[in-house]
């Protein structure tokens, strides 16, 4: 049992570190709420709350455009990754064929190599086919990268489905296709949700790939837009802070509701290369 003193001490430590984790982010929020006139080059504490910075950032920074790009790219990557990972995960978990484990390990390479490794040749390949500066140049490579994790994740989950469930479906005469979509996919909803959240977050936060592939301003993703916005707004931190919140909010909001999925997914050894 925990003594009262020990418990108080544990709470104190946890509070201290929660505060340390939150303080820089609270600084951003409080600066964003500071009226532009009171704003300085760093964090500010508002005398009265003002939401004007958000509309200023939204207008000046073209964040409506950037968020649309990010949303379009992230949702496409999530959807594509989910479908392809379900199919491949099913293949690696339930079929028997030569080269199966070799192919599986080949997909895992994507977990270990950083994007820095393939972004250069990828850029020249896509440039030669005229795909740079298009959403495809973001969607397809990021799907490839997410697939390494997705296939690994879905295969593990499909393997953990009790054999009796699969046998029962087979006895009912279910085809492979039906078994996958009617039995396995519905039972793997929590795993799918975790995967979708992680892939959404990775894609949303990705910076290098859009930086390399996109020159057209109207196709910039939110983090890329923020980086350009930052270099133009060094004196008025409140507007930059508001822009930062706009960029971080979609992921942070989903994290607030689904933090268990985020944490368990990321800690289960999800090394996205």
């Amino acid at each position, binding site marked *: 049992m925990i003594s009262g003193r020990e418990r108080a001490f544990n709470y104190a430590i946890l509070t201290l570190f929660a505060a340390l*984790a939150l303080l*820089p982010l609270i600084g951003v929020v409080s600066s964003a709420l500071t009226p532009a006139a009171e704003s300085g*080059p760093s964090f500010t504490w508002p005398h009265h709350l003002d939401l004007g910075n958000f509309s200023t950032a939204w207008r000046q920074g073209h964040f409506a455009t950037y968020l649309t790009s990010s949303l379009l790219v992230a949702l496409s990557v999530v959807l594509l990754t989910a479908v392809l990972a379900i199919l491949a995960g099913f293949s690696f978990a339930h079929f028997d064929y030569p080269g199966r484990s070799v192919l599986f390990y080949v997909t895992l390479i994507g977990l270990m190599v950083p994007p820095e490794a393939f972004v250069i040749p990828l850029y020249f390949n896509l440039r030669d086919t005229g795909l740079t500066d298009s959403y495809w140049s973001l969607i397809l*490579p990021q799907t490839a990268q997410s697939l390494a994790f997705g296939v690994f994740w879905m295969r593990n989950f499909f393997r953990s489905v009790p054999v009796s469930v699969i046998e029962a479906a087979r006895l009912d005469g279910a085809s492979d296709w039906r078994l996958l979509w009617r039995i396995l996919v519905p039972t793997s909803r929590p795993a799918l949700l975790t995967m979708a959240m992680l892939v959404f977050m990775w894609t949303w936060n990705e910076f290098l790939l859009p930086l390399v592939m996109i020159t057209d301003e109207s196709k910039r993703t939110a983090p890329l837009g923020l*980086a350009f916005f930052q270099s133009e707004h060094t004196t008025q931190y409140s507007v930059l*802070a508001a822009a930062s919140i706009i960029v971080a909010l979609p992921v942070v909001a989903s994290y607030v509701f689904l933090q268990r999925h985020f944490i368990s997914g990321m800690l289960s050894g999800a*090394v996205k290369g």
Partner: protein
Amino acid sequence: MAATAHRPTARKRPAGAPTREPVRRRGRVIQWKGYLYALPALTVLTVFLLVPLGQLVQISLFHWDGISVSTWAGFDNYTEIARDPQLRAGFLHSFVLILFFSVIPIALALVLAAVTTRAGRLRGVSVFRAMIFLPQVVAMVVTATAWTAIYAPDGVLNTALRAIGLETVARPWLGDFSTALPAVGLIGTWLEIGLCLVLFIAGIGQIPAELYEAAKLDGAGPVREFFAVTLPGLRGQITVALTLTVIAALRTFDLVYVATHGGPGNATSLPAYEVYNRAFGTGQVGSACAIAVTLTAVILLLTFLITKVQPQEDET
């Protein structure tokens, strides 16, 4: 990844279980359909990841500016990494960052997890966990803008230092040659400590309580308890934490791109930043590819070493 990759792979098919596919039990017939299901994913992976990876190695053996005809370079681009002081510095900076991203957070988180041994069973611990873990999900660009405000010449840090009379210490932290790299490193410490702490608290929750009781009965103090029970019990989690944070340190790009652009001078230049800069800034594509190959090799080697040094455990 490494920890979870080695799950037991034996197919659990009870002998004699009723099945419609007797062929499968014999394990002789090839289930061709399996290739079909894996094909779409493998195609995307091949075209957008594996082929570029091969091309990377190929380009690294040429002098190429990205436009004109490339010329054979052999290993010139690689020997340049050893010779060029700026590139050598980049790799050296990476190893300094490992100290800040991995060693300090893991050491701190271990001590904290040890003193909060029973924290996993506290009420409301999931709320704390969510807050401590939050830096992991915030876009790096946002983190960088938050910290540039803290480190700014008139930023929070300097204001605080002046308020307690340490004006001489105050400086533009990211603009000062001697402090820029540690300042970037500290952002990494802030980023990773939550990850390590959450991992270790979860890990301690899985250590059987009897082990702690046994240690207490043997008269072990808190220090001996830590080395005899907590530390061995967290081996798997430490491996995961090391892998994740070392990779994060070596891959650092966004943070430096937004916060310092590698400066001042090249005080915070890092391999990943040099890869980008040379390929898309200064037109040294061959050299950039050689750096990328080297960086990838270092990452793979360190990941391999981390998982090898730890005795194999059946860990989930």
